[in-house]
C-alpha cells in the first residue's frame, strides 16, 4: 500500500512538472519578421532607395506611437492628456501613447518581456552595445538618417566631429548618443567671501601660498565668529582644488588623462598626485581639512554642498557650475547652492567669490570640466517597429529631427511648453531674446509633457540658443577659465573589466594616506599594484588611442 502511495505521489509530481513545462506563450516569435529570415532578396542596385522608400511615413496616416517617458530622466509621469502631448499630437498628426517607466531597470524588464515601447533608451555604451547585438534596437542606416533626420545627421557630426562613431556597434548606427553641452565649462570654485573678508583676505586665492594661508585662517581664526572651533578650510570637493594646484587633475570617481610630453598620462599615479596627497595629509593632521570629508559635503548624498551652505567650510567645488549662479544679478535662474546660502545667510550669498583655479608650478591654471563630452545615454527605435512598421520608424525620426534639429523655438517649446503661456523672450544682462520660464506656474515642465520627453539629442547650437540661461551664467562667471578636457574621451576596451576595481583601489589608498593609516611612501606600492591590476593595459590602450587621434 505504501509502495502504491509512493508511486501515485511520484505520478502527481511528474504530471505537475509536465504541466508547468508545457505552459509556453503562444505569441509569435519575433525573429520570423527579420529580413534575413524571410528569404527576400533585394536588387543590389536600388537597395538603398527601396530602404528609404520603406521608411517613408504616410503623411495622411495618424501613427500611434508608444512614446517612452523615462521618469528618472524627465522627472515626472506624463499623462496622454497632458498639454504638450496634445500639442505634439496635433503638430505631427500622431497619437502619442506615453509609457511611463520609473527607471532603467523597469525598462529592461519590459525589453526582456518583449513589451518595450517604440522608443528605447539605455545608459552606458556596454548596455547599448548589448541590446543592439540582441536585436532589440533597430539599425539606423545612414541613408535613413539622411532622408528622415537630415538636420541631426549632418548637424551633430558638424558640431561634434566624430559623433556618429560613438553610436556605432560593429560599424552600424543604432541610436543617438547624448552630448553634454557644458563641456566647455569647468567645475565651479566657490569661496566664502564673507569669511575671507573677516580674515582680512580681500580676493579669492590664486596662488598656492594664498590658498594655504586661506585654508589655515579659515580653520584656526574663527571666521563665523561664534567662539567655537567648528570651521574648516575645505572638505571633500576642495581636494580637487589642491590637486589642480599641484598640476594634476585627479577627480574622485573616474580616471583622468592629461597630455604630457607628446602622450597621455593617468593623473592619479603621477608624482604630482603624490605631492598633493602629502600636502592634504598635512591639512588633515593640522585639522584644516574637515575630518568628515570621507562622507562628502552633502548631508543627503546629493551634489549640493551642505557643509559649505551651513558655513562649516570655506571653499567648495561641486560638479555643476549652474548650481552656483548668484541671486539679484539679473540671471534667469539662481543656482541651487546660492538658494541654500541665501536662505541661510543673505550677506554670505552676496559675498560669495567665483574664483579661478590656483596657478600650478607649471604656471598654468587647470581644472576638471564639469562633465565629459558625452553623457552615454542612448536613444533608439525598437526593432519590432522597424520590422513591422518601418514607416512609423521614419515618422519617429522625423519628429526627433523637427524637435531637436530644426530651430531653437521648437526646442524651447519642447522643453518649457507653449510660448506666451509658459515662457517668453526676455532680456538677460543685456542679452536679448533669451527664453525665460514664467514663474509660479502650476505643474512642472515634466508633468505637462515638456522637459526631456521629446528630446533625443538636440543640436548643441540650438540648445545654446533655445536654453541659453546656463551658458549666459557660465560665461559671465568665467567658468571657462582653466577648463582642461579629459585627453581621452572614448571608452577604452579594458575599462569595463578593470576600471571599477582600479578606482576603488585608488580611493582606498588615497583615503588611507590622508587619514594616516598608511604612510605617504605607500603611494609607490599603490602605483605598482595599480599597474599590475590592469592599469598598464589601460594606459597602453589610452596611449595608442591618443596617438591614433593625432
Amino acid at each position, binding site marked *: 500500500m505504501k509502495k502504491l*502511495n509512493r508511486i501515485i*505521489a511520484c505520478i*502527481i*509530481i511528474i504530471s*505537475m512538472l509536465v504541466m508547468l513545462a508545457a505552459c509556453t*506563450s503562444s*505569441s509569435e516569435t519575433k525573429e520570423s519578421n527579420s529580413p534575413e529570415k524571410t528569404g527576400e532578396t533585394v536588387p543590389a542596385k536600388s537597395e538603398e532607395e527601396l530602404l528609404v522608400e520603406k521608411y517613408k511615413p504616410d503623411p495622411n496616416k495618424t501613427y500611434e506611437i508608444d512614446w517612452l517617458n523615462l*521618469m*528618472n*530622466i*524627465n*522627472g515626472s*509621469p*506624463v*499623462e496622454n492628456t497632458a498639454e504638450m502631448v496634445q500639442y505634439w499630437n496635433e503638430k505631427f498628426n500622431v497619437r502619442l501613447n506615453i509609457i*511611463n*517607466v*520609473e*527607471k532603467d531597470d*523597469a525598462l529592461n*524588464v*519590459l525589453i*526582456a*518581456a518583449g*513589451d518595450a515601447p517604440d522608443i528605447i533608451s539605455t*545608459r552606458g555604451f556596454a548596455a547599448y552595445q548589448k541590446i543592439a547585438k540582441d536585436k532589440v534596437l533597430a539599425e539606423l542606416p545612414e541613408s535613413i538618417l539622411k532622408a528622415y533626420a537630415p538636420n541631426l545627421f549632418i548637424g551633430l557630426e558638424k558640431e561634434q566631429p566624430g559623433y556618429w562613431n560613438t553610436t556605432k556597434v560593429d560599424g552600424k548606427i543604432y541610436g543617438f548618443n*547624448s*552630448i*553634454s*553641452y*557644458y563641456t566647455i565649462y569647468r567645475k565651479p570654485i566657490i569661496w566664502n567671501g564673507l569669511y575671507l573678508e573677516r580674515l582680512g583676505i580681500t580676493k579669492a586665492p590664486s596662488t598656492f601660498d594664498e590658498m594655504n594661508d586661506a585654508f589655515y585662517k579659515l580653520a584656526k581664526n574663527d571666521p563665523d565668529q561664534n567662539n567655537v572651533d567648528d570651521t574648516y578650510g575645505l572638505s571633500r570637493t576642495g581636494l580637487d582644488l589642491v590637486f589642480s594646484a599641484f598640476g594634476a587633475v585627479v577627480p574622485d570617481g573616474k580616471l583622468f588623462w592629461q597630455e604630457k610630453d607628446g602622450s597621455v598620462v593617468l593623473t592619479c599615479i603621477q608624482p604630482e598626485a603624490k605631492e598633493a596627497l602629502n600636502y592634504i595629509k598635512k591639512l588633515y593632521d593640522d585639522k584644516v581639512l574637515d575630518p568628515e570629508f570621507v562622507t562628502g559635503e552633502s*548631508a*543627503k*548624498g*546629493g*551634489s*549640493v554642498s551642505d557643509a559649505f*551652505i*551651513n558655513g562649516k567650510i570655506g571653499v567648495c567645488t561641486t*560638479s*555643476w557650475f*549652474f*548650481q552656483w549662479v548668484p541671486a539679484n544679478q539679473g540671471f534667469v*535662474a539662481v*543656482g*541651487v547652492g546660492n538658494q*541654500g546660502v541665501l*536662505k*541661510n545667510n543673505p550677506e554670505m550669498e552676496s559675498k560669495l567669490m567665483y574664483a579661478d583655479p590656483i596657478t600650478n608650478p607649471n604656471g598654468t591654471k587647470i581644472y576638471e570640466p564639469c*562633465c*565629459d563630452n558625452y*553623457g552615454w*545615454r542612448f536613444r533608439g527605435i525598437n526593432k519590432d517597429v522597424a520590422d513591422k512598421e518601418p514607416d512609423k520608424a521614419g515618422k519617429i525620426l522625423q519628429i526627433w529631427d523637427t524637435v531637436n534639429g530644426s530651430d531653437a523655438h521648437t526646442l524651447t517649446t519642447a*522643453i518649457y511648453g507653449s510660448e506666451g503661456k509658459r515662457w517668453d523672450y526676455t532680456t538677460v544682462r543685456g542679452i536679448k531674446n533669451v527664453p525665460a520660464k514664467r514663474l509660479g506656474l502650476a505643474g512642472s*515642465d*515634466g508633468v505637462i509633457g515638456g*522637459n*526631456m520627453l521629446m528630446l533625443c539629442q538636440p543640436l548643441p547650437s540650438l540648445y545654446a540658443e533655445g*536654453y541659453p540661461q*546656463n551658458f549666459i551664467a557660465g560665461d559671465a562667471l568665467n567658468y571657462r577659465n582653466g577648463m582642461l578636457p579629459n585627453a581621452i574621451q572614448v571608452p577604452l576596451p579594458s575599462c569595463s573589466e578593470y576600471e571599477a576595481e582600479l578606482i576603488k583601489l585608488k580611493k582606498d589608498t588615497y583615503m588611507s594616506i590622508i587619514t594616516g593609516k598608511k604612510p605617504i611612501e605607500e603611494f609607490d606600492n599603490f602605483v605598482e599594484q595599480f599597474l599590475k591590476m590592469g592599469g598598464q593595459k589601460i594606459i597602453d590602450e589610452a596611449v595608442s588611442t591618443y596617438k591614433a587621434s593625432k
Partner: protein
Amino acid sequence: MNKSKVYLGSMIFDTFNIIMMLLFSLTIIYPFLYLASMSFSTTATNLNPLNLIPRAITYENYKTIFNTKFMLTGYINTFERISLAIVLVLLATILTAYPLSKKYLPYRSVITGLMVFTMFFSGGLIPKYILVRSLGLRDTVWSLVLPGLISTYSMLIMRNYFMSIPSEMEESAKVDGANDYRVLFQIIVPISKPIIATVLLWTVVGHWNAWFDAMIYISDSSKQVLQVFLRHIVISGYMEKELEESTVMMSTSVPEGLRAATIIYATLPVVCFYPFVQKYFVKGIMVGSLKG
C-alpha cells in the same frame, strides 16, 4: 541579607535595562520626530541638524502635497489595493491552511512540500512579468494582488495554528450537524483571531510598502500606487550624478521639507493602524510557530 542583595541586584539590572531600552527607543523614534519637524519647517531652518522643534512653522509642504494630483490618486489606489488584498489574502490563506492542517488529508506532506518549494525557488522576474501580462493583468490592481495572493510563510503559520486547535471542538460541531465550511467559518475562524490579525497586519504592511511590483506592472500614472510617487520624490534629488544630460531638470531640486512631508504623508496610516493589531502580532507568531 541575601534577599536584600538579590533585591538590590534586581533593581540595578532593571534600572539599567530601562535606561537602555529608553535610549534604544529614542534612536527609533528620533528619525520619525526629525522628519515630522522637518515637514513643518521652512527650507532655511530645515538645513540645520538636530531640529526637533521647528523654528519657523509652515504648512506649505503639506499644501503642495495635497495639491499634487498624483499623490491623492496614489493614496486611493493604495487603499484599493489593500482592501482587495485583505479580503482575498485572508480568504485564500485560510482555505489553504485549514485543509493542510488535517493529518488525514491525502498527500498532505507532498502538497505542503510543493508549496514550501515555492518559498525558495521562483521563475524569476521576467517570467512572472510575462505571466501577468499574458493574463491581461497589466495596468490593473489585480497585478498587484493576485501574484502574491498566498504567502507560503503566512499559510504555514496559520496551518500550525489551526493544528493547535483541539479536534474535539470540530467533532462536537459535526455531531450537531455542521458541515466543513460551517465548522471552518463559524468555529475555527472566530477562535483564530490572533493568527488572522497577524496575517492581516503582514498583508496590510506588505501591500502598503510595496512599490517594485507596481513600478513594473503599472505604467498608467492614474493607477499608480503611493509608494512609487513617494520613492520618486524622495530620491529624485539624489539622481543628479547619473543625469549628466538632464541639465534641464537639474537646476531645481525637491526641498527637504517636501521630502519629509511626503514620507510622513505615506507612513502615517500604518503608524495609526499598527497599535490596534500589535497585541495579536507577537502572540500570533509564537503560537503559530509551534510544532509542524
